[in-house]
């Protein structure tokens, strides 16, 4: 039945307020999570969370884009749209992971990096660019999982990984279908049509070699049935860590570089 969902349906599911957030998956997958805050320069961005988690006895660094479930939460989370300081916090924690040889697990769920005046003043472009630049050569394995919306450069800034996985009903795109339709057809109402043409679903992107794995949802994941997904995730992350454990640093970095080099 899921296969009959159109891309635009999946866009709606990915954006749904019912959809579990990064913190829900962290609770479901990891034995513990110690949250760490701040970019050490300007502010703690609520749209990105990060810290140290334990899975199967192994410490990992976890970073995720965090959406809120209601208006109050979303004021703090800015609807999952990070400011530059969010990306800088993420990079600080990733560098810390490198120092202490911890694998990095990222959860991607953002409509996009925030498009506001303060974000521009503080260098949104530079913050994203810096993450792409630094992540390309981090000496630890990186896994990114798109759980909801993978919106443009704001998503990519947490997805320069050795492997990128997507939940079945998540999306990953260069721009929202509305934005795409507006730019190319001068008509944002043609967003459903844009969604079909843009190849933004997990299956499409897997087919085109942009991602490594699709995590099945059967029916759209919610807090009620999240176990089905977190079980798969847990197993997958354990396998990922085991597969990358023995690799020397040069191989890890080269594999990540080559992953993007061929695109």
């Amino acid at each position, binding site marked *: 039945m899921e296969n009959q969902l159109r891309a635009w349906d999946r866009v709606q599911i990915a954006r749904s307020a019912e959809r579990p957030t990064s913190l829900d998956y962290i609770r479901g997958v990891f034995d513990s999570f110690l949250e760490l805050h701040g970019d050490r320069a300007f502010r703690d961005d609520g749209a990105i969370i990060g810290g140290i988690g334990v899975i199967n006895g192994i410490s990992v660094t976890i970073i995720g884009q965090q959406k809120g479930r209601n208006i109050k939460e979303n004021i703090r989370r800015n609807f999952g749209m990070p400011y530059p300081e969010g990306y800088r916090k993420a990079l600080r924690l990733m560098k810390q992971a490198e120092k202490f040889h911890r694998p990095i697990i990222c959860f991607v769920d953002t409509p996009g990096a925030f498009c506001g*005046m303060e974000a521009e003043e503080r260098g949104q472009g530079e913050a994203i660019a810096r993450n792409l630049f630094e992540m390309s*050569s981090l000496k630890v394995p990186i896994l990114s999982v798109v759980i909801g919306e993978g919106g*443009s450069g704001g998503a990519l800034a947490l997805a320069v990984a050795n492997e990128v996985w997507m939940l079945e009903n998540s999306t990953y795109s260069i721009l929202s279908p509305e934005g795409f339709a507006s730019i190319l057809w001068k008509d944002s109402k043609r967003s459903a049509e844009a969604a079909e043409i843009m190849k933004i679903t997990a299956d499409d992107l897997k087919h085109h070699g942009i991602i490594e794995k699709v995590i099945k949802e059967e029916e759209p994941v919610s807090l009620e049935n999240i176990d089905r997904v977190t079980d798969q995730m847990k197993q997958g992350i354990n396998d990922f860590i085991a597969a990358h454990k023995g690799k020397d640093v040069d191989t890890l970095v080269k594999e990540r570089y080559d992953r993007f080099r061929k695109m």
Partner: protein
Amino acid sequence: MLKELFKKTTESVSEKKHSKIKEKIARSMNEPEVPEGLFKQCAACGNTVYTEDIIANYHICPKCGSYFRIDARTRLSMILDTDSFIEWNTSLETSDPLEFPGYQKKITHLKKLTGLDEAVITGEGKIKDIPVAIAVMSPDFLMGSMGEVVGEKITRTIETATGRRLPVIIFCCSGGARMQEGIVSLMQMAKTSGALKKHDEAGLLYVSVLTDPTTGGVTASFAMLGDVIIAEPDALVGFAGPRVIEQTIGQKLPEGFQRAEFLLEHGLIDKIVERKNMKQVLYTLVRS
């Protein structure tokens, strides 16, 4: 838009003459190289100026000093020693990953119109006898947008420069990632940034020059990664375009927002350099 601009001058120019000039300008606007039209209209001050005067003045309006956008070949001729340029990475073709309706046709048309093979020219050349690898984005080719070919050409240029231990100079001019190629365009941001990281680790210099406009996925990748970042005066540089921001925040942006001077003030770039001084400043950087 062109019509609106001309409204300002109709009073001073007779109707017949006006339409003739208009024709010439319309023609010159479509041409990639130095315009053949006798006159050009400055979009900033509205004055009609001799094209020759503009060219002699580094493509800057002699009346008001505002910068005309220039195509990649003109730019190369301003920066590199005469006849020193050797072009690299020609004839790459897009795979049209979305099979976007009309896209291939548009690319073919633009190639013919501009004489370029894509929105960036790459290669090596000399600045006062110092060899450099250089990439120049061209606004006349789909607004310098970055798809798979642009990303690939820039990446190959950086990789070759790393291998040959050359400094890299990139003149950015782009509306951002190219929508028509979808997610593949987005991936070019990671690819180019990764190549720059290797160049950086080899201890080599990368100078990024931001020209009007530099936005979106180009700003959020190689444009902002220079060891030294230079901008042309008044160049628009940002991640989100001004219209998107205005829609997001529901208010008008202040004058000068996202202009080069604004970026300098906010500590995001090293320096604003006038066009006539650009070659000398780049020379100072690459010889250091």
